[in-house]
């Protein structure tokens, strides 16, 4: 079968959204009382849970201690029931490790780590249900959890994905759209300064239109996400 038609002639996507519409976002902070901060977020059918511990003193090997700022430790995992076919290994695979690293880099850019020298902040994120845009949902969940924990940040980190089909940018891709063969770009942003914390692009074809995608959709719509996540 020729690939799915991701964008109909009338401008509807597979699930009935228009090109620039986001999925429905629902979020809740403080879902657990044991942790220092926690949050739960749903973006469409992608659901994630984030928990923050700390700042506390560095656990494990002391050698990781940094003397001028805090260490950020991130762990990303996916529940075995999160995908259509049951996952064998919830965490520790190559993809999760990569995602953990990306999260860590993102939050090192956002959290004011220099306020907590010789300490550690743990961020654990778990995907409960996966339907595209896992990275951006994780970032949004973790931001809420960090806010809940009361750790100072330069700005809230907001993330969203965008795809490029038939020269039209599509905001907030779902799973079917991510697998549809086009290019997809995930972007985490500190909206107030308009600064980019992380940019990741997966494309099978040349990415001639990056600037167009970035300018027209991502910047504008990340504002929307930031409004939503702040509530």
């Amino acid at each position: 079968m020729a690939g799915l038609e991701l964008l109909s002639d009338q401008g509807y996507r597979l699930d009935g959204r228009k090109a620039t519409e986001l999925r429905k976002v629902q979020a809740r902070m403080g879902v657990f009382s044991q942790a220092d901060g926690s949050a739960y977020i749903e973006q469409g059918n992608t659901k994630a849970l984030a928990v923050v511990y700390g700042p506390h003193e560095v656990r494990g090997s002391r050698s990781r201690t940094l003397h001028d700022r805090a260490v950020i430790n991130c762990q990303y995992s996916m529940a075995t029931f999160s995908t259509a076919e049951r996952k064998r290994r919830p965490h520790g695979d190559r993809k999760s490790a990569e995602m953990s690293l990306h999260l860590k880099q993102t939050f090192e850019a956002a959290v004011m780590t220099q306020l907590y020298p010789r300490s550690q902040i743990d961020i654990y994120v778990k995907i409960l249900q996966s339907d595209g845009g896992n990275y951006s949902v994780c970032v949004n969940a973790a931001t809420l959890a960090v806010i809940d924990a009361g750790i100072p940040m330069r700005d809230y980190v907001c993330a969203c994905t965008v795809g490029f089909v038939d020269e039209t940018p599509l905001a907030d891709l779902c799973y079917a759209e991510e697998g549809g063969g086009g290019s997809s770009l995930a972007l985490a942003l500190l909206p107030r300064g308009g600064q980019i914390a992380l940019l990741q692009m997966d494309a099978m074809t040349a990415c001639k239109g990056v600037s167009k995608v970035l300018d027209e959709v991502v910047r504008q719509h990340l504002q929307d996400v930031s409004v939503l996540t702040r509530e």
Partner: protein
Amino acid sequence: MIKTERILHLKSFRGRKVRVVREHYLREEVPCYSAVCQAGCVNDGKVLSGELTHYVVPDASVVADYLEVLELRELQGIVFTQTAFQAVQHNKGRSRQYNRLRGLLKDPRHNCVLFANEFQEYSYCPREKGESQDKWQTKCVYSAAVWYHDHLAGLKPIVMITEDQAAVTQYSSLNAGVYVISIQDYLQNFWPDLQAAHELYSSISQALQEKGSEGTEREYAEHLPAEVLEAGIKSGRYVQGILNVNKHRAQCEAFIRIEGSTNKNTDLNSDVLVCGVKNRNRAVHGDGVVVELFPKSEWRGKTTALTEGQGEEKTGEEAQSQPMPTGRVVGILQRNWRDYVVTFPPREETQSQSRNSQRILVVPWDQCIPKIRISTQQADALQDHRVVVRIDSWESTSLYPNGHSVRVLGRAGELETEIQTILIENCIHVPPFSEAQLREMPVISPEKPWRVDPGQVVVRRDLRDTHLVFSIDPRGCEDVDDTLSVHTLPGGEVLELGVHIADVTHFVAEGSLTDLEARARATTYYLADRRYDMLPAVLSANLCSLLGGVDRYAMSVLWELDARTLAVKKVWYGRTLIRSSYQLHYELAQALLKGENAEVPELTQLGTEEKDAKLAQLTQALEMLTHVARHLRAKRDREGALELEGVEVRAQLDEEKNITALVPRQPLEIHETVAECMIYANHWVARKIQESFPQQALLRHHPPPRQEFFCQLVDSAKARGFFCSTRSNKALADSLEQAVDPQDPLVNKLLRVMATQAMSNALYFSTGACSQDQYYHYGLALDRYTHFTSPIRRYADMVVHRLLTAAINLENAAGHSKPSASNKELEEMAQHINNKNRAAQQAQRLSTELFQCLYFKDKDPQVDQCCVADAVIYAIRANGMLVFIPQYGLKGAVYLRNREGQVVTVGQDGSCEWQSGSVQRYPERISTTCSRGTSTFSLFDHITVRISVQASRYHSVSLHMEVISNKPHQNAEQQPPQLQGRSQLVQEVVRLAEEQAHDKAARGPKFSKEEREFCQSKSPNLYSLLEEVRELALIEQSPCGGTAVKSLQYRPYSAGMLSTC
């Protein structure tokens, strides 16, 4: 928006079932696209007319089965539901139908819209557990119909049509104003007079009924499932390609042309042969198929003998060439069925068939297509008529495909029927222009003539008083789309050459009905006796035609050339206002150049002195033009431009459309001069738009030919002792230049014809779809080329005009204008125009052949001198040879052995007769041996043939040639035939000389300095990409010192971008 969920059960790649949950958003405001909408929907685009009596909502099965009926333009106000639309979309093997439906919805001439009912909050109904798909679809369509009725506040009755009787009884009485009826009732009640719809309906429904009652005996092997085919192609086990049936032996031989470089079988560089109908396995000419190769021991060669007549196939002792890859079809990827013209067999034959219900085997006009079985009640009335049919299906249990009739063309053999047949067989649709289209045209009448708009005078450069503009066209030309000007600028150092092209796009707005119609036609169709215009006559023959003495809008290219070296100093592009001073024709211009005393019609009224002065001015301009053109031509020749020959002959018709003669046309230098200027303009416009829009400019390229196609040329040249180098276009041009036989100028002509045949056609493309080294035009030896100079009769030129306008605006207004079409759309359009051009050429050729046959039809071959002509042998086959008749521009086969096994022998005086004997073939000659001795025919020999007409009931009429002497034909009142032949060889003058010129020449890819030195391409590379990312203002040195994390990820295969060498 409300979020709901949809649960789908899909099959995973491993064949396991997976439960997938997808979100499904519902919204209140889904546009209804109706003109009578009360709720204020945002209806942009096509809107259902408010004047209709009712709207029709077909359900999914009706759309799937009876789309053809709904396609009729008379049926209006059709609301296609998303449910039905997706049912067609997801139906495997119906992608063609899906594309047709999409085309229908986009086509503004059809009054139909798509309603996204599944995204509408109140018309969506979720599928319940255990509900069958058909029931659910019917329910959805019905609730959409009800919503539509309520949404329009009951202003329009809604008719839902379905073939499901249960649905009719269940829903028909639920809502007032929403009627549920069957399609038959609908047609009878609402369209009782629309005969075409009724016929189409009954023929389709009959075909559907018959489908159920197939026999069970298997005639063909089943096709393999799509997954297996895909895996097989990837692993190299199967080969994918397009099926091409050999016209001359449609029953037994077909070839698969391998597509692109996808096949991994490196030893497979030729086509794949498929022998016999069983191995072809229900594939029809043109289908995309997958073949499995046989082991090498079973490979066979293709037949090299000529076959006489149709249908009767002999196998066995026929001569075969080298064995080539042979295989069988295992699956079909893409059906490529179109409308076919068929002929009903005469009564005697139908009766023997008709025991088997009402099914009849009809014979397609195209010999490549198998017979088609159709069900009809009208077999008797339609015998010997030509009818359009469509193929519906071809089951493995059936020997022939099943189809249904669409419409009747007329009795076979009549001129109108035959012309219609040619049009339909080439998929050319040229209905008269509709009212709505003509309404878009400016009104002009004698009382209210068209005037130049003062607003336009301001924005255009006015050349009316400053430039001497003139046009040179064939005599009696109505649509003048190009004019020229040339003069020396003050100071004498600089020469200004101008090409001014009719500004069609000023009158035809993009997206207007006229524009869409022109896009659909893509070109003006020239047949032997008539033409079908691309634009309405008011534009093509009046407003856009750059006639003499009137003000016209134009698009101009003006070059400032150095007067001595003729190097380009400056180029100006833009819209202008011109008044052509002289409307010359070729013969007149040539006469002026030669200094002959020719009468220019524009000057007859003037006094002698003034006349002489003006004439001198004009002649000087023409001389200057010739000088420039010679220089340009020489420059291209140095690069390797080719000069080749076509053998098209134009039939001269009298008022009753009878052929009176085949009039020769003397090629004049002025033809070439005008053509050269046009090529120059095209080239510079191509440069301009390509530089302005590197990703989305429409250009024309001519790919270098494959070397193996030159075999015949090289061998034939060798037979006459010439060496032919085909390494590059320059080498080819040089060796063709030298291959001249002083005794027989035809040899060179024929060699050039062979070279032309070896080449591929020039094609339009979008610059984003090819890499830059593929832009090259082999025939013209230009690095970039496009079509700009004939917007009246080619749609591609209109596209280029729009691109050029956008490019000019871009320059002036710094980025306010962008081309309207993206690379993808442009590439689609280029493909469409290429296809239509091919069809136009084909139709023109067929109609010329038709008239050639008509010319010989009334003449008795035994008596009439016209039917005996001189011919030249240009190829040798196993049982005969191919000859070219210069006098009529005909090509054909001459047999040396007939079906009884007799061969042609030559007597003492050169006359030929049939005797039993044998034929022996050599590379350069063929000889027959019998009791009277041996006679030999070699390549390029002149012989005399008699031409007769071979009538055919089912196919087109063809000409038959018979050798009557091996001496050149000497006719008392004629000059020596070869001289006559030379003058008779007419270049293809029907199209502009410019167009054929580019179907000539070539040269190897030109690398830039960087490419040669560092193997680095200029196209987007990683460096420029990174540069782009840098420009995105990543926050490296932001005041708060945040760590910017950049991660550019590429999958391994995008690394190919780094280097194109």
